[in-house]
């Protein structure tokens, strides 16, 4: 087999004016291993076709794999697309040659983190997050955004960022506190362990809303404070969960990362819908129809199906064009929001035409798609699940303990 050292030696001088970087043997060995794993790739491009982020990538998984095969470490370590992979695994599922593409790219990222110097917001975000996480278990968006801004990365959706910042500041100021977390239960109550992650606690109103909506279903949320979920874009080590019990989450990123760490998690919305179905009560929705949206972090097919279930219980119309439309990239590309994508544009245009709001079970997606709508000047409301669905008012006489 040709090794990477040979590749560097045999390159013609006029190929590239500058000398190729010499990497430590360990890196070359790891790349040789990766190349061997990918050697049966025949560049069909099915991975890129499947990649939800690739609509906006210059180099999709296929081209990144090609660079591995060509031994172009320099080019790989210069491609910021590497950091826009969300490890959703669609490429691995689609691969005709059964190559674990997602894992290959993750390993390249691990190498790049040590030996490369890509300057892109996603990587910087991951790096800054990792550093902060060493000290604090949770990312704080205000500080994070400030850190990013200090490095020259101003979010494209400045208005949105300012709004979010103001909101966070408001929750920190003295005044009307968070709504009581245990809104008066009107139904038989169960208690579920709940992991809020890093996004919810920064938006006090939303956080309170989640508790309130859950309470409407007769669900009391017992918050597990277990630190960072360890999402890859944050680059942190998953923290320890002490209990084997299933933990319910409000964020698909938490879901995905905790699953990696073998923690049994599921979206809170599933529990709520399931409870409504079991207890025989309906859901109430904000409007008569909606357009579902699920980003890359969630199990997309399942999450859209779950939205369908909620729609059925609420008696509202879920408007679906074709699945790929409803799981395009929200614009974060797995890292930091970078503006509307072709995918979010198509989604929002569809919603605008249908005259229905977009509903998503992912709080990150909500913010990003909302920003995209603002950027594209499309007046489409974008709702997070609990902002759209609620339990219908229970008939009084039914109240008894389950």
């Amino acid at each position, binding site marked *: 087999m*040709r090794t990477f050292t040979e590749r560097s030696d045999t390159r013609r001088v006029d190929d590239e004016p500058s000398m190729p970087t010499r990497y430590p043997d360990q890196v070359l060995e790891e790349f040789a291993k990766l190349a061997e794993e990918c050697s049966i790739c025949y560049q069909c491009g099915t991975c890129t076709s499947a990649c939800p982020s690739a*609509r906006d990538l210059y180099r999709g998984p296929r*081209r990144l794999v090609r660079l591995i095969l060509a031994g172009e470490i320099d080019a790989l370590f210069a491609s910021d697309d590497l950091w826009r992979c969300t490890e959703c695994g669609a490429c691995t*599922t689609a691969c*005709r040659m059964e190559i674990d593409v997602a894992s290959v790219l993750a390993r390249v990222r691990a190498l790049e983190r040590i030996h490369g110097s890509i300057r892109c917001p996603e990587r910087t975000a991951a790096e800054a997050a990792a550093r902060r996480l060493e000290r604090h278990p949770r990312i704080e968006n205000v500080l994070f955004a400030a850190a990013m801004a200090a490095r020259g990365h101003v979010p494209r959706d400045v208005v949105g960022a300012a709004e979010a910042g103001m909101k966070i500041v408001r929750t920190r100021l003295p005044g009307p506190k968070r709504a009581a977390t245990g809104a008066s239960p009107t139904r038989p109550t169960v208690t579920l362990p709940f992991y809020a992650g890093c996004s919810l606690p920064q938006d006090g109103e939303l956080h309170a809303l989640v508790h309130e909506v859950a309470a409407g279903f007769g669900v009391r949320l017992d918050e597990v404070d277990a630190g960072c979920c360890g999402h890859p874009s944050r680059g942190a080590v998953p923290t320890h969960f002490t209990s084997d019990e299933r933990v319910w989450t409000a964020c698909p990123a938490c879901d995905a990362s905790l699953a990696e760490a073998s923690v049994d998690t599921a979206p809170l919305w599933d529990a709520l819908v399931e409870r409504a179905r079991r207890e025989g009560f309906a859901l109430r929705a904000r409007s008569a129809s909606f357009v579902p949206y699920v980003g890359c972090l969630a199990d997309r097919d399942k999450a859209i199906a779950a939205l369908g279930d909620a729609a059925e219980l609420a008696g509202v119309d879920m408007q*679906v064009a*074709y699945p790929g*439309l409803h799981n395009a990239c929200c614009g974060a590309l797995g890292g930091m929001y970078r503006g509307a994508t072709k995918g979010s544009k198509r989604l929002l245009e569809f919603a605008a035409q249908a005259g229905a709001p977009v509903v998503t079970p992912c709080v990150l997606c909500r913010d990003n798609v909302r920003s995209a709508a603002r950027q594209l000047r499309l007046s489409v409301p974008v709702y997070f699940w609990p902002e759209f669905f609620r339990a219908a008012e229970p008939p009084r006489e039914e109240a008894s303990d389950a």
Partner: protein
Amino acid sequence: MNDASTRPRVLLCECAGTMTNIDFHRLAAHAAEQADVVRGAHWCGREGQAQLLEIMEAGGERPLVFAGCSADFATRRFQKLMARGLRMEVADIREGCSWVHGDDVDAVTRKAMGLVEAAVRYPSTTAETLSHSTRENTVLIIGGGVAGTQAAAEIAQMGHQVELVERRPFLGGRAARIGSVFPTNDCGQCLPTTDDQAGVRKCFHRNVAIDHPDLHVWRRTTVESVSGRPGDFEVALRRLPNMVTDACVNCGTCETVCPEPASEPGHKAIFHEYYDGRVVRTIDLDACSFCGVCAEACPVEAIDFTQSPERMTVHAGAIVAATGCVPAPDEYVEYLGYGHDGVVTQVELAEMLPAWEEQAALGHMPAREVVMVQCAGSRDRRYLPYCSRLCCMIALKHAMRLKKLFPRMKVTICYLELRTAGIGYENWFLAARRAGVEFLRGTPPEVQFDADGRPVIEVEDVTAARKSVLRPDLVVLSTGLVPPKENTAMAQILGIELDEDGFVEILDRKNRATETTAEGIFVCGSSAGPKALIEVSTEASAVASEVHNFLRSAGRRSTPASVVDEAACVGCDVCSTMCPFNAITLVDRPDDAPRPVEVKDEGKLAVIDEGVCRACGICAANCPELAIAHNQHDEAILGRLATLTDGVERPIVGFYCKECAGAAISLGGQHKDKYPENVRLVELPCLGRVSALHIVEAVRLGAAGVFLAGCAEDRCHYRTGDASAAEQKRVAEELLAEARLAVPLEQWHLCAVDRLSVGRRIRMFAAKATHDDETLAALERELEQLGGHCLSHADVMAGADSTVGVAPCAGCGGGEPVAHVH
């Protein structure tokens, strides 16, 4: 040996004085100790041959040993005498001795003496009786598609009786049922006729070649079992009744009155499918209620319900499997939305096209945009890992047809690679591009559907490196082709092997494309892998002549089959599992058979079918009891080894097969590439004949190194000889390591292209085994001078050290080809 009537005769040839480094007086004197020596300057000359003929005719029982050129060379030179019954053992003192050694007359002569003595004392047995003398003149052909029917017609024309067995009621197979076919763009219903006129083709129903008096068609018939041996198979057949007799005039009254629907939509219990001109209608026995309405309605009384299934036996000398292939099952393409409206396969599109043609005539366009997805479920490790070869051309054919019918239709072909390798195929690709068909390199992982149920395809346009979203009205999946599911059962019945994809395994993909792994059983057409009609037709003709040759060449073997010594066989199954031709079976040991002491009353005994055995010797090499006698007996091999190495200081021993390695070594000898005299070579029929015993014995006799040279990798003429040799080499290595006698052992894969390098390879091995650093350094310099090579000393050593054979470089004989990067 001293008996005058059996005393061997040695014909000593000096090859017109080209062997100056041999002292022929001394050689003759040595040979005279064992045999009568007749010296000649040039035996293959006119006078020599005349003299040889005299000796042959006067010879009687006296064995002949020819000492001169290699067996390869001598066989060709004495071809005419061979045909007249000349049998002789050959001692190769020319390419194997004189020509490859230097001027040390003493050493070279002593080697020649050893070679002659070994040939005199340890000849291999020759076939005096032929293993089979007659072959049944009947050929059974399974499958009445284009392949089977054409082969049947041609074989019948060649003068053999043909039994053509077809599972369905109608001949014609898949080709007859599909529309137009590439590359001719006409229907697939014609066969070449076998009459005098060149280039004539006719539809099945008009083709009288099928009506040859010696060609018997068995419809609705399946093969139940096969027994017997090549040349004389006994085949049990089961035939379902057709119920509709030949009297049928195709009026269709029966179908009109039939009240029973059949399982296939649109069919009734009495139906017609494809008109092959002989049987018009048939009855679906599962659907028929036997009400008899049709029989009453039939104006010509062609329906006979008294017919019943029958079982018959036919005898056949050869069998041809022509069972074709079928489209991949639906579940392989469900991930691409198959089953949903707006997604069809190419086969279904072909069925739709006639209706679309009519729509086109009315000025309608049934679809605005059509996307064809190539490699749907193919070249995919999760479904079909292989390329079905036809789908690209089918897509081009259909795409062009669509563009012709509907010039404004957008037709996109999503492809991975467009494989248009075939005579004239590339022109189709060109024509399709000209016709405005769009080509998008890339395939989607899924087909999605929008709210209106219209397909949406998201695919990377690989060449443009961007994603495209296509919204066609129709998605056409180019599905692959798979072997029919009945193949497994058929393979079991016929005793043939299937390849990893389930198609019939071909004996040799390069040279014997119509032979299966079982002798006397042949294959043609798509049974052995998807093929276009053009290739199927060629194969049908090819198999016809192969079968003809087989039936006409009774007794073509010149080596006797191996024999099991009943007194030594313990009935283990080593030989029967190792035999590459399934020639060995274990039978219950007859009560009166001799048996080894450890075998008590019950027990098995290995029996070799001499009609199937090809005398490779793999069984003999692997038999743990040395109970199998091969025509190169163990004693003969060990005796040769002892004779050849006698009096040699640290010999290098090489075992080589007489096929590819033999070709390389004897051609290398003619090239006069030198190697040291202490190299002693033992020729075997196949490298599989070598056993650990032989290797250990060579080392015991003082060998400094042993090499085993066989055919090119995976190209053993006896299929598994190289694998067997590798295993025996491993065993020998273990034994030698235990005895602290380890010497370099190597296995090489050679073929005729290595003729220029084999000498150097042997030299290098000898130098390494004897730690001759000087020679090694010289060899390295020699290689450098050959130029273009970047081999370092370390690479040379790594190449030579490797225990598995590496494909040698034709230029230098060492290292991996990859080392030759410039």
